[in-house]
Structures are given as structure tokens and as C-alpha cells.
């Protein structure tokens, strides 16, 4: 029988995030099958004990917490220390953790210290023929594998957005508070804070229904022989405002920005979708002025419904990579699209 541990961290507001709640769903289901429903939950954060009470109905059979100011922020050295302390207290064979940016940094280090095998980006964890297996992607979402490990302990980072989050309700639980002291050598790094783009420039919205991708065609010469970068920027920003969608970009368009060419000013490498960028999870995606080449489209692996607007009827999107390809001028379509959306907005007040 496995000994299952789920390790979580609190968010800056002290609560547990969506990814943490999703990983609770995974741990509960797995523990039922491989540990007779017994599992431990360890939480790291400035006020980790309170966070434990907030998910008191999750069914964990043991609760541990590492609290304190030093553990309230994402810092590799202190996070590894905290996870290591929880790990030693539980002595698990199977460790689960949500694949948040914070845990993706620290958990591999903690796992290595504990002699564990580690797998990340698990999009599914289940029991198959009595064995714990996981599903993950290789080569940037181009190859999918189902794999397991005979080595224990085994640590698995689950991919956010792949299961429904656990519906938490507060309940009082007994939380073991672990005393972990942070020596000076783990405090060489101090966290200054989070730098977010200004509210009106925040165009990456992971929870949006729609991903809008702008390709390099927006900055190329149009039918009149001129480039219309300013109009392109206005059309895209207006569409983002009207639909509250998330903005992505192809690599070429982002690279042009870093090479100093006049391009869409609000695009950065953070918007890059594809081989060297992100692989976002949105139910729908609309690509514009983008050719749909393989290095970009691998970033669309988890976009369920895909549509594209491109002047080239033979572009990559036409080769089975999109559900619908509109062979049209994106400038013209976007003008109409924004007009219709604005009319609807005004009609609904």
C-alpha cells in the first residue's frame, strides 16, 4: 500500500489557489485506490494552518504545516527546506503537488534531496491494473506517454487545469505545526514582489474562454502596399477589451519586437505560444495573420476549438490544424467583428 502525501503552498493572499484545489481532487481519488483513503496533506505558507482549516472537508487523514514569514514567499531555498521537513515527517512513497510556478521550482530540489524519482506536467494520474500511472507530454506536446515508476518515493507534479478543483468548505482540523528554522545561508535571496503589467495592459488571462493569437502578418504590408501597425494594435486591443480574451503571439512577431522593429508594442515574450513559449489551456482559440506552422501550433495542443483567419488557403491551419479557416483579410474581419461586439455590448448596457 502506498503512503500518499500532497504538498501545497498558499498564495500571497494566504488562501489556497485553484491549482492546489485541483491537486486535492487528484490526491483524494488516488488515495482511495492505493492507500485505503488515507493520505496526508502538508501546507507551506505564512499562515499555513489557517489554509488547512479552509479545506478541512477534503478527507485528508493527517495535516501538517510549515508556517512563518520566511515561508510566505516563493524562494527556492526556503521552500525546499519546508517541503523536506513535511516529507521527513510523513515518509511517503507517493508525493503529489500542483504544478504551480512556485512548486515547479522547488519540488524537484526537495525530491532530489529525498532520493525520489520525479515526474512533472502530469495531465492525468490514475491507477491502471493496480499500478499508479501518469500521462504526460514529450517534445512540446507532440508525443504523449503513459508511464509509471517502480522507484519509491515517487513525486508527481500535476498540471493545472486538467481536473475539476475540489469544492472546499471550512472545517476545523488538527494541524501538526512543524518548526523549521531558516539559517542565514538560505536567506541570501529576498523577494521584492510581483511585477504585473498595468491593469489596462494585462493581456494574459489564463482563465479566459478564448485565446486570441496575433501573428506576424499584422505588421506586414497590406493590400495598399503600406504597413498599418497602429490600426492593428487598435483592432487587437479593442477585441481584447470587448471579449476579455487572452492574448498570445507567434514567436516571429515577438522576436521582431526584440529586434527593434516597429511592431505591436504590447507584445512580449510572455505572450509567445508554441515551441519556445507557453501551451495555454483555453476552450477556444482564434489565430489571426499567423501561418500555423508546427513550432507555433504545438502550443495549441490543449485548445479544444480552433479557428483561424489567414489570406493563404494553404497555410498550416488548413492542414487539419484548425476546425475552421477563414480565407480573408484579418483587418477587415476584425473591424466588423469589433463593430458587432460593440453593438452587442451597447445593447446589453
Amino acid at each position, binding site marked *: 500500500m502506498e503512503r500518499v502525501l500532497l504538498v501545497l503552498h498558499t498564495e500571497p493572499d494566504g488562501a489556497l489557489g485553484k491549482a492546489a484545489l485541483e491537486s486535492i481532487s487528484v490526491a483524494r481519488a488516488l488515495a482511495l485506490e492505493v492507500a485505503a483513503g488515507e493520505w496526508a496533506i502538508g501546507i507551506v505558507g505564512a499562515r499555513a494552518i489557517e489554509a488547512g482549516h479552509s479545506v478541512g472537508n477534503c478527507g485528508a487523514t493527517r495535516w501538517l504545516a510549515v508556517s512563518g514569514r520566511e515561508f510566505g514567499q516563493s524562494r527556492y531555498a526556503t521552500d525546499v527546506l519546508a517541503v523536506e521537513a513535511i516529507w521527513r515527517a510523513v515518509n511517503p512513497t507517493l508525493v503529489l503537488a500542483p504544478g504551480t510556478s512556485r512548486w515547479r521550482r522547488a519540488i524537484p530540489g526537495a525530491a532530489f534531496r529525498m532520493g525520489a524519482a520525479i515526474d512533472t506536467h502530469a495531465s492525468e494520474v490514475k491507477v491502471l491494473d493496480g499500478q499508479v500511472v501518469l500521462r504526460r507530454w514529450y517534445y512540446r506536446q507532440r508525443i504523449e*506517454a503513459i*508511464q509509471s515508476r517502480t522507484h519509491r518515493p515517487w513525486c508527481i507534479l500535476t498540471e493545472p487545469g486538467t481536473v475539476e478543483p475540489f469544492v472546499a468548505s471550512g472545517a476545523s482540523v488538527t494541524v501538526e505545526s512543524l518548526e523549521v528554522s531558516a539559517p542565514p545561508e538560505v536567506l541570501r535571496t529576498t523577494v521584492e514582489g510581483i511585477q504585473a503589467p498595468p491593469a489596462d495592459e494585462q493581456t494574459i488571462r489564463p482563465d479566459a474562454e478564448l485565446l486570441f493569437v496575433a501573428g506576424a502578418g499584422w505588421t506586414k504590408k497590406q493590400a495598399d502596399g503600406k504597413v498599418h501597425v497602429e490600426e492593428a494594435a487598435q483592432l487587437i486591443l479593442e477585441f481584447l477589451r470587448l471579449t476579455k480574451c487572452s492574448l498570445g503571439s507567434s514567436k516571429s512577431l515577438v522576436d521582431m519586437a526584440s529586434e527593434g522593429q516597429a511592431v505591436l508594442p504590447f507584445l512580449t515574450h510572455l505572450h509567445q505560444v508554441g515551441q519556445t513559449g507557453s501551451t495555454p489551456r483555453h476552450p477556444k482559440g482564434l489565430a489571426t495573420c499567423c501561418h500555423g506552422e508546427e513550432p507555433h501550433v504545438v502550443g495549441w495542443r490543449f485548445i479544444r476549438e480552433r479557428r483561424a483567419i489567414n489570406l493563404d488557403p494553404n497555410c498550416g491551419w488548413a492542414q487539419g490544424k484548425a476546425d475552421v479557416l477563414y480565407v480573408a483579410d484579418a483587418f477587415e474581419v476584425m473591424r466588423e467583428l469589433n463593430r458587432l461586439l460593440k453593438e452587442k455590448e451597447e445593447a446589453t448596457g
Partner: protein
Amino acid sequence: MNVAYHIVTCAGIVPDPLQTLEPSMGPDGPGLRNELMLPAVLDPWAAHALYEAAHLAKQHPGSKVWLVSLSPRAKLQQVMMSVAQKAAFELVPIDGPASGFTDSVAVGEALAEAIRSIPGLERERLLIFGGWESASRGAGSTLQVVGELLGIQDQFFGVDILEVSPDGGFRIWERVEGGCHQISRCEGPPVVIGWATGTLPEPPNQPQIGMANMRQIMPALQRAQAVSLGRRGLVYHEVDVPRQQRQTRIVRNATPLEIAREIVEWIRG
């Protein structure tokens, strides 16, 4: 305060992203069909790490860049013909598989061993660079192992910006959720930096640097030690290319208004 850094960049090679990849199962686990025939490139995020390393070294006279790569020797030699023209570095090759199906801890252990063998590396100047995640395994768990084995506790991942303060400390921008960055200040080396895309474009080819690099690279490749990697009990049950071919409906003669109406309906639906 000028510090001459010792920057070790860890970078594997991956199949050119334009290639079609097909998995095949062999006696030692999965691999890619015709893997040795596929054209390869330096792993994209690790390549960014190399460009950042070269840029930092240029700003801090006396700095030196090493490139440590675990790859099949013959493939690495091909990749070096182009990479060597991008930045000045000394290659530390390890002859072994570049496959994405290897275990990240085993790869980290091999890299750390190679870094330890570099003569003259000074800990108080040491920066370990690499790509945050590779384009093959994409685990994001290799550099942590390297750092742990080298006793480096200041590790940063998804880094886009590294600023050197006048006091020799670092100000580091790491990617976090929602398109934001976490900014941290670190007292200085040694650190591990897993780069995302950074902010630098790919440098142009510089044939003179390429020629100078290749004088060291060729003998280094000849001397490359072969390693075999442990698997930590990793078992693959299925490895497949997902069926993603869609029946694309191509709309050719619709007016912009008709298309816009259809898209609005789709968005709202």
C-alpha cells in the same frame, strides 16, 4: 564592482521543430524513429541561456562561458557548426543520449559531474545557466538536481531578466502565473538560473568566433566521455503521437461581415 563570472550553460540538443516526430519502442525504452537522422538544433530555451551568458560575459571583462552538453557526439558536432558562430564559449561535451525519454535526475547528475570536472571553476564567480525546460522532456527538473549536487541553494527558474547591481548582487525576474514576474534580489554567485526566453534576440553568425570556438570544440568532442543514464524505475506503457488531425472547414468566399457574424456566434456560443 566588476566581477568576472564563470558561467556554465547546460544545453542539450533537440530535433529541429519543423521535423515530424514519430516515437518508436526499443529494448531500452522509447525513442524517436530515425532519431540520429533528424536534423538537430540547440534546445531553444537553453540557447537563450547561452546568448544571455555571452552577453553577460561581454559586460564583465574576464568572464568565461562554458557550454556543457549531454548529447550524442556526432549530432553535437553538427549542431556546433552553427552554434559556435553565435557566442564565444568552451564546450564540455558528454557523450550520451539527448532523448526526451531519459530521466531528468540522471541527466542532472551527469551534468553536475561534468561541471565538477571543469578545471579552475570558482564557486564565488559561478553561475549555472540553462533552459528552464527542454523542448524534449520539458520536465523543468534537471537544473535543480545540478544545483543541489553543486551545493547551490539560490535557484531561479523561468527567468527573463538578470540585472547585476552595483554591489555585485543580482535582481532576477522570474515568470509566474498570469503573465507576471516575481522579482527577487540575491546577494550574488553562486546561483542557478533556468532561463525562459530572456530578452535578447539570437545573435548573428560571427564566423571568426566560430573558427576560434571550433579549435577547442573538435578536440573536446574527441575526448568526450560516454555515460549511460539510470532510469529510476521509469517504465513506459504507451508512447504515441496523438490523433490531432482535424477536418478543417475552409471558408473562402464569405464577406468580412459574414465571417464576423459567424465568429461572434462561436465566441458567444
